[in-house]
């Protein structure tokens, strides 16, 4: 089966939030409480258990490369964020129930009828994507519309995107499209355009993202980590620390017993 994923080209995003709405509609997700963040047009604020697409609104005090606007030193950046479906997924590696699986489309899927809500995936995601819902106690995140893919339909967010900022398809094809897009943007003077997580070489900690992005500023500006790492890659250190601690405990116990003997 082909690997399928998202290429989200943030330079095409107009911040309409149609992806957020389509995702909520299709997946029948509950609302988040209609709060105002007071920080921007972004009132969703973050991805979570009931928000699987989130549009970030960034007001920059600098113009975009190769652009002059009537506003002077200003540019809007929008980015529709989503679960990255990492090639090496922290949530999947940490799951003790086997609820989180890799599907035939190479996406990462949480089986809601298996998850027992231990919450280990929540701290193991280097992107802060997956979260536990308060009402049913189970972890939820983007499924890459697994149900729609089963019927050869594209995910709801990509379907609803009016500018094709969200592209869905075969991962290898998406990478080619993305590389061409970066070259086109560079030719137009948008020299800051680059791909985030498009391949294992550029993001070894996750071995590449099945949902990758084209960005024009630092990852931190979009609330993305610069160098995300699946925590289990450090489990060897953890296990050897455990072994040392166990050994120390045995030595201490032997010492304690020895000291009682004449």
């Amino acid at each position, binding site marked *: 089966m082909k690997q399928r994923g998202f290429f989200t080209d943030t330079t095409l995003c107009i911040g309409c939030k149609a992806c957020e709405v389509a995702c909520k509609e299709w997946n029948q997700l509950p609302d988040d409480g209609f709060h105002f*963040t007071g*920080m*921007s047009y972004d009132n969703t*604020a*973050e991805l979570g258990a009931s928000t699987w697409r989130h549009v*970030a609104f*960034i007001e*920059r*005090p*600098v113009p975009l490369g190769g652009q002059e606007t009537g506003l002077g030193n200003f540019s809007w950046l929008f980015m529709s964020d989503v679960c990255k479906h990492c090639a090496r997924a922290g949530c999947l*590696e*940490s*799951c*003790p*129930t*086997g609820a989180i699986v890799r599907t035939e489309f190479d996406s990462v899927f949480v089986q809601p009828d*298996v*998850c*027992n*809500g*231990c*919450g*280990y995936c*929540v*701290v193991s*995601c280097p*992107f*802060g*994507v*997956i*979260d*536990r819902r308060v009402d*049913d*106690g*189970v*972890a939820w995140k983007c499924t890459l519309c697994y149900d729609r893919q089963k019927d050869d339909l594209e995910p709801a967010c990509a379907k609803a995107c009016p500018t094709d900022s969200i592209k869905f398809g075969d991962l290898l094809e998406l990478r080619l499209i993305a590389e061409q897009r970066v070259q086109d943007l560079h030719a137009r003077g948008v020299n*800051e355009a*680059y791909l985030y997580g498009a391949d294992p070489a*550029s993001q070894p900690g996750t071995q590449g993202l099945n949902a990758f992005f084209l960005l024009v*500023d*630092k*990852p*931190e*500006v*979009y*609330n*993305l980590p*610069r160098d995300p790492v699946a925590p*289990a890659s450090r*489990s060897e250190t*953890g296990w050897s620390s455990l072994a040392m601690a*166990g050994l120390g*405990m*045995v030595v201490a*116990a*032997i010492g*304690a*017993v020895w000291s*009682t*003997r004449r």
Partner: protein
Amino acid sequence: MIPTDSDTTALATYYDRPILKQPVWIWTVPAYFYVGGVAGAALVLGAVAQLTGDSELRRLVRTCRSIGAAGHVIGSALLIYDLGRPSRFFNMLRVFNVKSPLSSVSVRGFWQPEVWPRVSLRLLPSGSGSDA
């Protein structure tokens, strides 16, 4: 490739919002670390005391085993209480995942054959004095 602080804009973060999610764990998890640690240490101490074969240490061995058994029961209860769906606790025992410390420890901890018989012996009044 990826721009650094010296490049581009004055912005450093996204409205100072955290990138990572807060843990959903409640007080029972740190409580478990303490209870489980004490129980584990007691079992190690008891095992070493038993291996010496010193009859004067028989009482220490028994105490250590009781603490270990009680900690095992209380620790399990604390961990299960923390789950979003406690009734699905057993889902944690159906797979073994070396990369997940939570999986390894719960599978190893719960299915260890040497402890549960002792737990029952310790907690039953008639068995409390026996040297199981």
